C-alpha cells in the first residue's frame, strides 16, 4: 500500500517535471504545444546515446540531456515556433502534432523502433524496506533519487519564480503580455528563455525517467495525453497546480493499474473529465482569466 503510494508519488513527480515546461508555455503564450513530449524523448535518447556510445556516467548524462534539449528548444522556438504564436489554437495543435509525427518517424529511422535499454548504476538499484504487512514501505533507490531530484527542482523553480527578477518578469508576462511589454519587459526574450528551460526540463525528465517511462520512438504520442491532463487539470497560472495535478495523476495511475489492471487508463481519463467538468479552467486557476 505505502509502496504503491510511494511509486505513485515518484511517477507523479516525474510527470510534473516533464509537464512543467508545457504548462508555462500554455500559460505564457497561450500556445498548445503537443510536441512537448518530443523534447522529453530527445532527452531520453541523449542519455541513452551518451551512456552506451560515449560511456558517460548516469549522473553526468542528466545535465547533458537538459542542456541538449534546452538548446534544441531554443533553436526551434526561434525558427518555427515563433510564427505560430498569433495563430488560432487549432492551427497550433495541428502544427505541433505534425512536429510530433516528424519526431517519431525521424527517431524511428535513426535509432530503430525498439525500446532502448538503460543500464542504471549499481547504487540506484538498491532497495530499502521499512515496516511490515499493509504498512510495508519498499523504496527503490532509483525512485527515491527521482523524488529527491524532482523535489529539489520544484523548490528551485519556485524560488526562481517568486524571488528573482526573472521570475517576476515571467509572472508579469504570463498575466498580461501586452502590459508587460509596455512596461519594458522583453517578453520575447523571457519567452525564449522559458521555452528553452521548459524543453530542457522535459529532456531532463525524459532522461531521469528513462527506466520507468521507457525510451522509444512512440514516447511523445504515448505520454502526450498525460502531459496535457496535468496542464488542463492543474491550470497553467501557478506551479502548485500542475504539481498537485501531476501527483494525483501519478498516484491514481499507479494504484489503478495495480488494483484494476484491466481498466488501464480508464480511471485517469474519467477523473480528468470529471474535474474538467467541475472546474473547466483547471483546479488552481484564478477565475477571472480570459
Amino acid at each position, binding site marked *: 500500500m505505502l509502496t504503491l503510494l510511494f511509486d505513485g508519488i515518484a511517477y507523479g513527480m516525474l510527470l510534473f517535471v516533464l509537464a512543467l515546461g508545457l504548462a508555462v508555455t500554455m500559460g505564457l503564450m497561450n500556445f498548445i504545444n503537443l510536441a512537448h513530449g518530443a523534447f522529453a524523448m530527445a532527452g531520453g535518447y541523449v542519455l541513452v546515446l551518451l551512456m552506451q556510445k560515449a560511456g558517460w556516467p548516469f549522473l553526468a548524462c542528466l545535465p547533458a540531456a537538459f542542456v541538449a534539449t534546452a538548446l534544441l528548444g531554443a533553436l526551434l522556438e526561434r525558427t518555427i515556433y515563433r510564427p505560430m504564436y498569433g*495563430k488560432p*489554437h*487549432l492551427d497550433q*495543435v*495541428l502544427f505541433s502534432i*505534425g512536429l510530433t509525427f516528424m519526431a517519431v518517424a525521424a527517431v524511428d529511422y535513426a535509432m530503430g523502433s525498439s525500446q532502448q535499454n538503460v543500464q542504471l548504476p549499481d547504487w540506484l538499484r538498491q532497495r530499502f524496506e521499512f515496516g511490515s504487512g499493509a504498512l510495508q514501505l519498499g523504496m527503490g533507490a532509483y525512485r527515491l533519487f527521482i523524488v529527491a531530484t524532482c523535489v529539489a527542482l520544484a523548490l528551485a523553480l519556485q524560488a526562481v519564480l517568486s524571488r528573482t527578477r526573472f521570475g517576476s518578469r515571467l509572472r508579469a508576462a504570463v498575466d498580461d503580455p501586452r502590459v508587460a511589454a509596455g512596461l519594458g519587459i522583453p517578453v520575447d526574450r523571457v519567452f525564449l528563455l522559458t521555452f528553452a528551460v521548459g524543453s530542457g526540463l522535459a529532456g531532463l525528465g525524459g532522461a531521469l525517467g528513462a527506466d520507468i517511462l521507457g525510451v522509444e520512438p512512440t514516447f511523445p504520442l504515448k505520454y502526450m495525453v498525460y502531459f*496535457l491532463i496535468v496542464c488542463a487539470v492543474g491550470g497553467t497560472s501557478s506551479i502548485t497546480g500542475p504539481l498537485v495535478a501531476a501527483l494525483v495523476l501519478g498516484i491514481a495511475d499507479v494504484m489503478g493499474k495495480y488494483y484494476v489492471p484491466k481498466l488501464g487508463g480508464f480511471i485517469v481519463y474519467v477523473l*480528468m473529465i470529471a474535474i*474538467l*467538468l467541475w472546474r473547466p479552467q483547471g483546479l488552481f486557476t484564478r477565475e477571472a482569466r480570459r
Partner: protein
Amino acid sequence: MSPRQSLLAPSRWRPWEFVLWAVIWAMPVVFGSHAALINEIAILALFALSLDLILGYAGIVSLGHAAFFGVGAYGAALFAKHVMPDPLLGMAVAMGLGALLGLATSPMIVRGTDLTRLMVTMGVALVLLELANKFDSLTGGADGLQGVVMGPLLGAFDFDLGARTASFYSLALLFVAFVVLRRVVHSPLGISLQALRDNRLRLTALGMTVQGRLAAVYTLSGALAAASGALLAQTTGFASLDVLEFHRSADVMLALIIGGAGWLWGGLIGAIGFKLMHDLLSTWTTQYWTFWIGLFLVVLMLAGRERLFRPWTWFKRGGPQ
C-alpha cells in the same frame, strides 16, 4: 439585391457542384478495380464532413471524434452479428447510438476553453477505447470483432470482395449526408451556429440559446460520424479497437484541414487528398510516411491554411495573407 436574396445566394447549388457530383458518381463505374479505395475515401469523407459540421461551422475543437466513429462501427457490427444482418437497419441503429452519445456528451463541450474541449473530447474517446478493451467478450478486444456477416443491401445487392456494392452504398450515404448538411448549414440554425462560432457573447445578447444549438449540432455530427464508422464495419465485415484509436481523430482532422474547414466540400476534397497522399507515401516509404505527413502539416500551418484551398493565389503574391 434584396436582403432575402443575398442571404439565400450562398445556399444555391453552383454548376460546378453538379459537375463534381457527376464525376464522383462516375468514379466506381470507371475505376471499378479501385472500388475498395473509393469506398475508403467515401467513408473518410463522410467522417470529415461530420467533423466539419462542428469544427468549421460551430467552432468546436475536437480531438476525439473517433469516439463516434467507433460507437458506430461497433454498433453496426454487433447489431449485424447478434440481431439482424440487414445493413440499412444496422445503419439506423448505429446512427441512433452516435446521436445518443453526442447528446449525452454535448453538455461537456459547452463549457470551458479550447484546451478544455480538446481534453474532454479526447478523454471521451480514450474512455471508450478503454471500455472496448475491457469488455473484450463483447467487442473481441485487441483481436477485433470477427464473424460479422452482412446481409445483402436492399435484399438484392450482396457485398462482394471487389467492394463494388460497398462503394456505391458509401457514396450514396455520403451524398445524402452532403445534401442534408447543405440544408442544415444554410438554415437559420446553421447561420446562428456560424455567428456563435465567431462571437458567442453577441449571440447570447441577441437572445439565442447557445447550449441547445450546440447540443443539436453535436448530436447531428455524432450521428453522421457513427454512420461513417458503421459503413466501415459493414463494408469490411470487421471492427477492432483501431476504430477508437487516437490516430483516427487525428487523421480525420488532418483530412478536413487539407480540404479546409467551414465549407462542406472541404471534407470531401480533404478525404481524397489525404487518402491519395497516404497511399502514395506508404508505397514509397512504408514505415516513415508519418514523417512526410508531419512535415506537410507543419509547412501547411506555417504557410497558412487559407492559401491551400485557394490554389490560384499561390503564384500571385508571396507571403501569407
